[in-house]
């Protein structure tokens, strides 16, 4: 979960210059000064402690754990067994792992590409339509966005149900008789396609709303100028819309990568990574190794590889984001 709107540059504020009443009991000013200086740190303390304890420590711990042999035996006995790189050798030497990693990367890339493209198209479409239709579209997207993941997964399972699902019924009705009792979950690829559709369906509203907000911010006169110059629709998009929306597009693509790479709930709830492991991604694999099989060391190594892959995918953007924020502070 990441904030999307980066706010305007903070106005440098200097609280110590604000007029301040003297303490009523006439306490020495110096004490008030010390309190004032400590105040920001006191206000920040709970948040910083929580972040270091609940985020910072686990981050260290996952790396440390990945170098340990830690199965249920070691855990219950409280033994600490260091195995160096054994966990990594085990997973990286397993061809099945590479299959899962490749599947995760391809799946994420496809889902992100389709949802960002669809979000962009809908955002641009929203500028062309009448206000009433726009509200209808926005309400429809809000419904998809607001539905809890697990409710949505259950509904999709019902729509895609083999026997009584409305999709198969509709397909048969319009003449595709081969869909009578067709199973959408018989192969990993088709299971992932349904899950991908579900993820795109829930991701597009946020993307479309953000990009629409960006698109209506583009000054009208730029379009007028393009119109006077006789630019075609595509040329106007290339020359005006694209350069203005590019930063926002990069931002939402980055966020989508971050979110979609780690998807677990929908995949697990749909078919638990099946059939036959065919829809298992890295997040599912991590759960299977760690929680189902209690191979905590191996699972921690999977987590580390996951983060490394994600970092590899987003590194360039991350660097730019941090740098741009530094400039704004």
């Amino acid at each position, binding site marked *: 979960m990441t904030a999307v709107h980066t*706010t305007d540059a903070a106005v440098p504020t200097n609280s110590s210059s604000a007029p301040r009443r003297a303490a009523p009991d006439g306490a020495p000013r110096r004490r008030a000064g010390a309190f004032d200086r400590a105040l920001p740190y006191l*206000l920040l303390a709970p*948040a910083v402690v929580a*972040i270091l304890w609940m985020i910072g420590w686990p981050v260290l711990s996952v790396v440390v754990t990945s170098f340990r042999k830690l199965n249920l035996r070691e855990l219950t006995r409280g033994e600490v067994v260091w195995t160096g790189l054994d966990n990594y050798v085990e997973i990286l030497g397993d061809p099945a792992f590479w299959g899962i990693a490749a599947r995760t990367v391809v799946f994420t890339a496809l889902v992100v590409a389709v949802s960002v493209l669809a979000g962009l198209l809908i955002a641009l479409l*929203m500028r062309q339509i009448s206000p009433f239709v726009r509200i209808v579209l926005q309400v429809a997207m809000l419904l998809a966005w607001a539905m809890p993941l697990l409710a949505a997964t259950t509904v999709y399972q019902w729509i895609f149900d083999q026997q009584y699902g409305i999709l198969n019924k509709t397909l048969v009705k319009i003449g595709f008789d081969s869909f009578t009792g067709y199973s959408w979950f018989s192969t990993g690829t088709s299971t992932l396609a349904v899950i991908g559709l579900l993820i795109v369906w829930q991701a597009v509203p946020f993307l479309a709303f953000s990009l629409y907000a960006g698109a209506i911010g583009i000054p009208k006169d730029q379009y007028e100028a393009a119109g006077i110059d006789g630019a075609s629709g595509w040329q106007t998009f290339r020359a005006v819309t694209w350069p203005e929306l590019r930063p926002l597009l990069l931002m939402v693509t980055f966020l989508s990568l971050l979110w979609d790479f780690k998807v677990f709930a929908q995949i697990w709830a749909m078919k638990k990574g099946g059939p036959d492991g065919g829809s298992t991604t890295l*997040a599912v694999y991590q759960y299977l190794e760690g929680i189902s099989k209690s191979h905590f060391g191996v699972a921690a190594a999977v987590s580390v590889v*996951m983060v490394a892959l*994600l970092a590899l995918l987003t590194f360039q953007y991350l660097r730019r984001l*941090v740098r741009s924020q530094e400039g704004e502070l």
Partner: protein
Amino acid sequence: MIAKKISANVVALVVALFFAFPTYWMVSTALKPRKDLLSTGYDLVPFSVTGSNFATAWAKPGFLSALGNSLMVALGAVLAAIVVGLLAAVALSRMRFRGRKSFVMLMLVAQMAPFEALLIPMFLMMRDLDLLDRLPALALIYFAVTLPFCAWTLRGFVNGIPLELEEAAMVDGCGRWGAFRRVTLPLLGPGLVATSVFAFVTAWNEFLFALSLMKDQTKETLPVWLSGFQTNFGTDWGGAMAASALFTLPVLVFFLIVQRKMVTGVTAGAVKG
């Protein structure tokens, strides 16, 4: 030109249909009598309507306890994250002190922490704290997941409130706390609501940690309970859809509230010119 406009509207309506259909289908299935569901007849609109599916879902073993667990965990986590996040946001936005930049950076980076990849250390940590199968474990994790987001977003909202307003209140004799409580806090209202809603939805949706840390069935949250609907409902799709609808309802209501509040803007009309 008009033809283009009409076709754009038609396309938009088709897209709207695509997004709204699953919600419609959830509700209409939940309202259908059981015998209509397991038939091969084609009924996009229910022939007859019943409330019995909702009654079935409500009475299913585990539903009420899961609902209670979910509410408790999500509300507890969000309340804590908003309070702690607001304190940090005020410091980061209103005060100038050594190390401010690093703290802002910490919030930005912490938001991007891939929590799913911290499953194993969190599991081990909760085991050490003896919190496995106990709801506070989830509340604690959801608090940590939402805190950086809350702090970051609230900082943005505080930045949006002109400092001059607080200064004016102090000139009029308010203390710093009084100025904050009487001026900034009320203006922050919509921002607080919006931030809490998004944090709440995150906690309400969370599945991986709830599944991994709460093996005891009485500690299940709604997402985990619903994911096992096939054991709960079998092929009773009406009941499953009714349960999904009940699960969706609070989120939908919250989203509608935020939509309205967000439009009013954070400081609309507070400082003219």
